[in-house]
């Protein structure tokens, strides 16, 4: 039965996280925006916090059932998006800098063997997919992995790797068989310090500056044979690749939640200013009979609510084991775009207050822009939604 009331357990959870975001993240938000690339040591307290992935499925029966049995705990996806919104209300760049909570950790947790879990489980793992010539078209990556005796030899260049400097290892996408196309793409764990593995440089970004984004070069980089995640076998067809892409169905709502968190920070800031100025927001008057600022505010709040509801729906579906490919992309398409529009509008309405680095709104405007770009640009999300609802293949709708 349809019921969109926020459950009490979520309210309790988010109010706790909100407090953390307010007292731990907000006070250092500006500092690490200005000191790009320096490690926010204050985040050590969060090391290993489960944010982007769930515990891996354990094989042994005698393992404790509450943790790591691979089954989603009650509403894990929903509570995760709710937590992420709160954290990003605090600071999105800092959320991305939480130790040992990288996308690579999520990838490892999802498919690693017990032995691999033993070796990599305690590491901070970054994720390296994008290449200079392969952005949205992740099937076109050219980094290669060739088996040479007991070692894989990797060659290529990986860009836009989050946590590039701080991580202990990187999950690298590479092809073991270019002719096999997408089916030949596998992921490998490359530890820092492996010969031929070099952090080339860190990027200087528009926003989320607290997060260290970098470029890696793999130059005849050698790693042990069992650093491959999943099977080395190249199957015919694209099922394997589709499986990898399916993980995006889980991560896209998380990005949508990040977008929602930043947009809410802006909306909350604006509300405070509006109320300080003596205007009472009463949600009853004809929206065309109030001041322009009030109407704009109401509209932003409405869009914010829409962003959150689309995100929660996608997460809720994942929790209930419903296929949510369309809904995950819908949430990111909407939230990514509107976080940008809401934070831009907030700065506009704030006037001089919206342009100064003494205040945070200008930062949120910069931070939010990435939400319409990473984990698939808004255009890619529209493409996915359109293909699904028009029932068109990627050949028919390019």
């Amino acid at each position, binding site marked *: 039965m349809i019921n969109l009331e926020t459950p009490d357990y979520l309210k309790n959870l988010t109010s706790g996280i909100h407090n953390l975001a307010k007292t731990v993240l907000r006070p250092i938000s500006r500092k690490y925006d200005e000191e790009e690339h320096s490690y926010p040591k204050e985040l050590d307290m969060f090391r290993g916090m489960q944010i982007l992935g769930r515990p891996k499925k354990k094989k042994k029966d005698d393992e404790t059932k509450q943790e790591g049995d691979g089954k989603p705990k009650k509403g894990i996806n929903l509570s995760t998006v709710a937590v992420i919104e709160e954290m990003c209300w605090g600071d999105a760049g800092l959320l991305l800098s939480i130790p040992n909570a990288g996308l690579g950790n999520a990838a490892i947790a999802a498919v690693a063997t017990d032995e691999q879990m033993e070796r990599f489980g305690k590491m901070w793992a970054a994720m390296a997919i994008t290449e200079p010539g392969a952005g949205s078209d992740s099937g076109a990556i050219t980094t290669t992995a060739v088996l040479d005796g007991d070692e894989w030899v990797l060659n290529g260049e990986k860009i836009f790797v989050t946590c590039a400097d701080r991580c202990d290892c990187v999950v690298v996408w590479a092809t073991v068989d270019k002719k096999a196309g997408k089916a030949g793409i596998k992921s490998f764990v490359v530890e820092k310090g492996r010969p031929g593995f070099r952090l080339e440089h860190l990027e200087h970004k528009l926003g989320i500056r607290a997060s260290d984004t970098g470029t890696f070069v793999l130059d005849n980089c050698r790693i042990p044979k069992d650093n491959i995640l999943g099977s080395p076998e190249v199957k015919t067809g694209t099922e394997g690749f589709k499986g990898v892409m399916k993980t995006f169905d889980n991560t896209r709502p998380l990005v949508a939640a990040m977008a929602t968190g930043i947009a809410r920070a802006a909306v909350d800031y604006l509300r405070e200013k509006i109320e300080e100025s003596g205007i009472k927001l009463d949600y*009853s008057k004809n929206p065309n009979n109030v001041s322009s600022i009030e109407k704009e505010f109401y509209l932003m709040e409405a869009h914010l609510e829409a962003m959150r509801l689309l995100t929660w729906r996608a997460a809720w579906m994942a929790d209930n084991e419903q296929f949510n490919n369309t809904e995950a992309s819908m949430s990111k398409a909407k939230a990514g775009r509107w976080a940008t529009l809401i934070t831009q509008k907030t700065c506009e309405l704030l006037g001089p207050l919206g342009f100064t680095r003494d205040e945070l709104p200008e930062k949120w405007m910069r931070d939010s822009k990435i939400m319409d770009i990473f984990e698939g640009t808004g255009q890619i999300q529209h493409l996915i939604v359109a293909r699904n609802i028009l029932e068109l293949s990627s050949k028919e709708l390019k």
Partner: protein
Amino acid sequence: MISFMPSEEQSVMKETLAKLVQNTIKDNAHDMDEKRIIPQEFIAKFRELGTVQSPIPEEYGGFGLAASPIMNTIILEELAAGDMGYAIACTLPSIFINPILECGTDKQKEKYLPALASGECEATLAINEMHFKFDAASPKTTAEKKGGKYILNGEKCYVPLADVAKYFLVAARCENENCLFIVEGGTPGLVIGEREKNLGLNTLSTYKVTFSSCEIPEENKLCGAEGYDRLLQKTRIAMSALGTGVSRASFEYARNYAKERVQFGEPIAHRQAIAFMIAEMAYEVDAMRLMTWKAASALEAGRDAKRESYLAKLYAGEMTMKITDYGVQILGGHGYIREHPVERYYRNGRCIACLEGLAIV
């Protein structure tokens, strides 16, 4: 527990209404719009389902089932996906019944509910007024208390089925407070004007209604500001449900059209310029529905939904225009021709932001 999935009962209602719309107005909606009429039997078909009477207590001839705002949004969306005028006409008695159930005295319930439960008469709401900067939160129509009576003065417009309505719920200011009054058809001073000619909702007959020193007994006051506020919340949620329905209809028609319409050797749906518009329509229809459900969930939980209902209607007003515009645009020149329903959806959709109080949850 939070859930985005309809219950079995909710799904069955949705399917039943989809079938009803399919079997009644679907192929006739164009003609109905041109002739500005809804065949009475089509309304009767809906009323047979008993959803209007359902919340009326058994002692007054209803089924005594708890009112469900969420179920009502599902009903309104489904009917409006067929024709918005039809959705309003079908559910109109509820706009009188629900406030009586919520705020009415036993005497008022006894007096008005049995006739409405048996379906022998119509009732309506007079809230909109034809003047610049109209605001439902501060009506210009007045009620003055004078010796055991209220005297109503003012002009209302877009009053659905005012020609046949036996009872009118009237929004008026009284002693600096928003109030609702019950006026019976035929009361001296209540003047029903000519049928209005509107941009859309052509299937629904609406009227200007004038109150000139219209005297009603004291006991015909239904409620003050609190009940009035609840009415606004419930009608705003209903308006967003109507917007969701008409937007969905436009989206579905444009989607199907884009898959069939061939230009430059392939369906236009194969072009990103079109496909992206359709994707946006899809998620905005969903967003509108979720906002509607969110507000209705608050009511269902017995909470105040002032903020949620206000935002839902604001969103639906904006988005219905955007989506129904896209619907016309995707069909290009054909979208401008009245044989395709998207032009009608575009006209009908305009009412969500312009008007208040055409339906209730």
